[in-house]
């Protein structure tokens, strides 16, 4: 066992895991309990050394997320009515329109938050879930990088829903211009929420275990 040596974390000595010590850790509050404990006496969370069943939850939410993401791209996000025209813009369509108007920067923000992050997240979660059983699939560092991205970046996809909310509440200028949220705003928001649940269901300890088994954990 290693000390949490505050300034110089960890000499090259091999880190022991809670499981190897015959104990079980609480994923919510990081406390450690005897191996037979089933409930954290500190925060009340359920204790599972390795949550293999979590993969089923990961896939269920993942599927729900994809099923909402597809219509989110087909239906309009925004319905704009002006004196001259009426237009329904999908996520990608809206971004292309922005580029035509010269707002390339904003178009990039929208495309990253609404297309790149969600698709990247679907792929990452799938790769991570598959690689729990097939550790050779991805190099070690990429898997841990992926997990961090999936865990912290996903919620930022919600930007586009909030943009729709602000635009629709603000641009209400009778006949001159008015904006209404389209049906895609709901399916897109649900897709973000479902993928957040999917990502939260991953037990990252499974990923680290496989590394130890395959690479001997040189750290």
């Amino acid at each position, binding site marked *: 066992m290693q000390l949490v040596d505050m300034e110089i974390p960890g000499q090259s000595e091999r880190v022991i895991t809670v499981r190897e010590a015959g104990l079980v850790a609480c994923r919510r509050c*990081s406390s450690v309990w005897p191996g037979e404990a089933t409930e954290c006496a500190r925060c009340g969370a359920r204790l599972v050394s390795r949550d293999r069943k979590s993969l089923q939850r990961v896939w269920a939410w993942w599927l729900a997320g994809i099923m909402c993401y597809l219509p989110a791209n087909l239906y309009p996000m925004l319905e704009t009515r002006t004196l001259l025209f009426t237009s329904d813009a999908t996520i990608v369509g809206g971004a292309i329109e922005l580029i035509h108007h010269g707002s390339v920067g904003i178009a990039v923000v929208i495309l990253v938050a609404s297309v790149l992050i969600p698709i990247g997240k679907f792929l990452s979660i799938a790769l991570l879930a598959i690689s729990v059983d097939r550790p050779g699939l991805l190099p070690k560092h990429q898997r841990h990088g992926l997990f961090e991205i999936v865990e912290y970046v996903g919620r930022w996809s919600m930007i586009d829903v909030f943009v729709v909310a602000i635009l629709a509440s603000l641009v209400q200028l009778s006949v001159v211009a008015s904006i209404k949220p389209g049906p895609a705003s709901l399916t897109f928001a649900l897709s973000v929420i479902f993928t957040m649940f999917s990502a939260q269901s991953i037990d990252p300890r499974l990923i680290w275990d496989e590394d130890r088994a395959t690479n001997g954990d040189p750290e």
Partner: protein
Amino acid sequence: MAAPTYHDTKDLIACTECDALYHVVDPNPGELGVCARCHHVMIRPRRFAGMRIIMMAVTMLILMVGAIYFPFLRVEVQGLAHSASIMDAVFAFADVRLSVLSVLTAAFILLIPALRMGLLLYVLVPIVFDRPALAGARRAFRWSEVLKPWSMAEIFAIGCAVALVKVGDLARVEMGPAFWMFIGLVIVVVVQETFICSWSIWKSLDSQSA
């Protein structure tokens, strides 16, 4: 080395990401306890953190009341004007088919951020003022942690920036007092997050009930 047996697991800490086991040496304020295996930050105590979190939570709640009450944004084009409050943005999805989204938006940008502040106050005020913890303080703190990713005020703020640029081409936009209050609120939330060390708070809760 034989596997050691552990009589007392109180001084141990687990990395919640990679399951590495550590023995905790009492950290000094400002130091970081980083997992040697996965670089996850486990401990980050700050000086007077409790008091600062309390003050920021109160500030945030006051700013939120103001941000809801005052005008948020106003557009003007060809003599026509329209102003919107944050509540208008929340209820932008008034269409029956989309009304779930109004509830979700209200939760993500107003209710959950405010609820988290309330929970933190409930947990921390007794600790900081040396009183016994209130009933259910542990459950309250656990919920505050669970809700963290669902508190999206800062994402809404970026959404505002994007929306402003989008409208800016077509119309003149004025920021109302609520806009600046909301930006202040987001800054408070982001700074406050750097003071919240859950390990330290759990430890305080442990020592209170012992």
